[in-house]
């Protein structure tokens, strides 16, 4: 991790503003977004819709074959590229990047032996956990918005843009469709809150950030596999990945809000449970590094 410079400056920032929670949060964000790794992940996410758009543009110039519904509608309207990008990124790429950020949150500090310095300064352990979690949430939002905006921009560049056809068959104007794209990005952000909390908890268990990252990503995949098995149907509404693709309900006319609400409630449950677990572990742990 070639991030000694931003980390040092982040520590400086912490030292000057440590008395304020908001200042601590701002410095944590500065550390996160000054890292080359964070930008590499956001660029990789932005590449997803760009690759889709370019591939569809090259391959569909002659034929008009029917592919999956979302990929097919790209050629008619570039504004769909962002949604198609999110659809493809939600099962793997987004959990991957969120797992890296959340898994690294505490274990990364422990690994680089900066955790005890953070706690020597009068930063409470609870506040540290909360700030680390909020930074991961901001990253989720940044990741979802990156996918959405990159998709819309490349779509405008490569495909015709016009009124958007919703799943219900109704047509809405460009302004309305941009609002819905924003809502879908928010939906994706909310969807990742539970996974971020799980990652934060795992991160308090170990001093090896790679292990915490891998465990978080593996859990997200396990949850999705369980969600697709009919034998575990009783478990499905309790899996944090259950509503991940439910953002399609935002593309109906009128918008079906119930899946947004159910998703938010479920993620809140995960945040409470794993936040409490992380607190239990982190506050009772001997910080040796």
């Amino acid at each position, binding site marked *: 991790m070639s991030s000694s410079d931003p980390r040092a400056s982040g520590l400086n920032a912490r030292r000057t503003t440590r008395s304020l929670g908001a200042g601590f949060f701002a410095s944590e964000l500065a550390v996160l977004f000054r890292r080359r790794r964070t930008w590499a992940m956001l660029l990789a996410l932005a590449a997803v819709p760009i690759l889709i758009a370019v591939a569809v543009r090259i391959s569909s110039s002659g034929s008009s074959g*029917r592919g999956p*519904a*979302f990929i097919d509608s790209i050629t*008619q309207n570039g504004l769909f590229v962002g949604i198609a990008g999110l*659809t493809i990124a939600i099962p793997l790429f987004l959990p991957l990047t969120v797992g890296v950020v959340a898994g690294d949150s505490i274990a990364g500090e422990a690994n680089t032996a900066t955790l005890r310095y953070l706690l020597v300064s009068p930063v409470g352990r609870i506040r540290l956990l909360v700030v680390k979690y909020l930074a991961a949430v901001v990253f989720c939002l940044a990741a979802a918005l990156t996918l959405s905006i990159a998709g819309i921009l490349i779509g405008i560049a490569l495909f015709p843009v016009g009124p958007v*056809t919703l*799943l*219900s*068959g*109704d*047509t809405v104007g460009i302004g309305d469709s941009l609002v819905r794209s924003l809502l879908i990005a928010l939906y994706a952000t909310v969807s990742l809150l539970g996974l971020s909390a799980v990652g934060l908890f795992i991160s308090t268990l170990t001093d090896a950030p790679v292990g915490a990252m891998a465990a978080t990503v593996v859990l997200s995949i396990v949850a999705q596999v369980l969600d697709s098995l009919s034998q575990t149907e009783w478990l499905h509404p309790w899996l944090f990945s259950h509503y991940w*693709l439910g953002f*399609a*309900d935002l593309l*109906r*006319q*009128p918008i*079906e809000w*119930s899946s947004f609400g159910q998703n938010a409630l479920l993620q809140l*449950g995960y945040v*409470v*449970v794993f*936040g*409490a*677990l992380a*607190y*239990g*572990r982190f*506050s*009772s742990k*001997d910080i040796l590094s």
Partner: protein
Amino acid sequence: MPRTWHRWIPAAAAPVAIGAVVLGGVFATSASADPADKTPQQVLELAASSTVDTFSGTIEQSSNLGLPDVSGLGGSSDSGSSSDSSDGSDLSSALELLTASHTLRVYVDGPEQSRVQILDDMAERDAIRNGDDLWLYDSSDSTAVHSTLPADASTAPDASAESLTPAELATRFLDAVDPSTDVTIGDPVTVAGRSAYDLILTPDSSTTLVSSVEIAVDADTGLPLSVDVFAQGTSDPAFHVAFTSLSLDTPSADLFDFTPPAGTDVTEKALPNRDDAPAEGSATPDAGTHPEPIVTGTGWDTIVELPASTDPSSLTDSPMLSQLTTSVDGGHVLQTTLLTVLITDDGRVLAGAVPVESLQAAAGK
């Protein structure tokens, strides 16, 4: 670390709190104000006098008919052979409606305007009626079917989706209440946040597959809110349809104003006009393919028989049917928990909520 054990208290308390909220929610819905006592006959009258024809709501429908889930069997392979297997895809979509679970949204403004949306994963099927215009839209393959109702048609032909609403279904059961049915009232229930009477229809017959039908009738308006059909020997409903949310406000008018989006495959489909049928019907070849069904038996034991009309091999050779049916004496039988369908070797189709032996006996007459 014994001195830090109390730091784990939140971690232990959080699942307990969530469990309490979940269970509390379950109990809270069952403990609502009970409506005034009514006799079964009064509730039947209440349901019959219901004048609600403007509402919107979300409906959940599930069924447990003992049929395999055929959603993956025929519907998805429409890319190559859609032209010659239209019967098969119609059959599979009908079976899909019966075997899978669905969430629907309905918007109704009077008898002339309605919209039913079947919310699929990443797709949606819509049935819209606006005055004389009927639209069926399927977003998964962007196709639309447009029909215009004959001006003098008294009742609209039911779109298959529309017949799935609790009100439509309950009306059919309630219309069929006759001396062969025992009507009782169960404990008041809460459906979609509204208190309702639980009307229980029990067939007074030993041969039917239906053990009971439970209809929740809204205490305020008489609108049927849910229908559960129970089969003999099962405790879970074989067919369940219920509102999960209901609003009696007038839905927004532009919901019924449907224009197919650009790039949609629109098919115009003429509806048979009943008054015109005798005049020119004899000349149309369609007349032969819709023979009058023969109805035998009464009440819950009713058996409907379709005479041999189409080529029987087209039915029995269909790979999906041969997977679903079993061979019995005199034909093939499709057995579900609620309904038995017998396709005889000479091409007649008999169906009823009765055991297969009754169908065989009826076929042998």
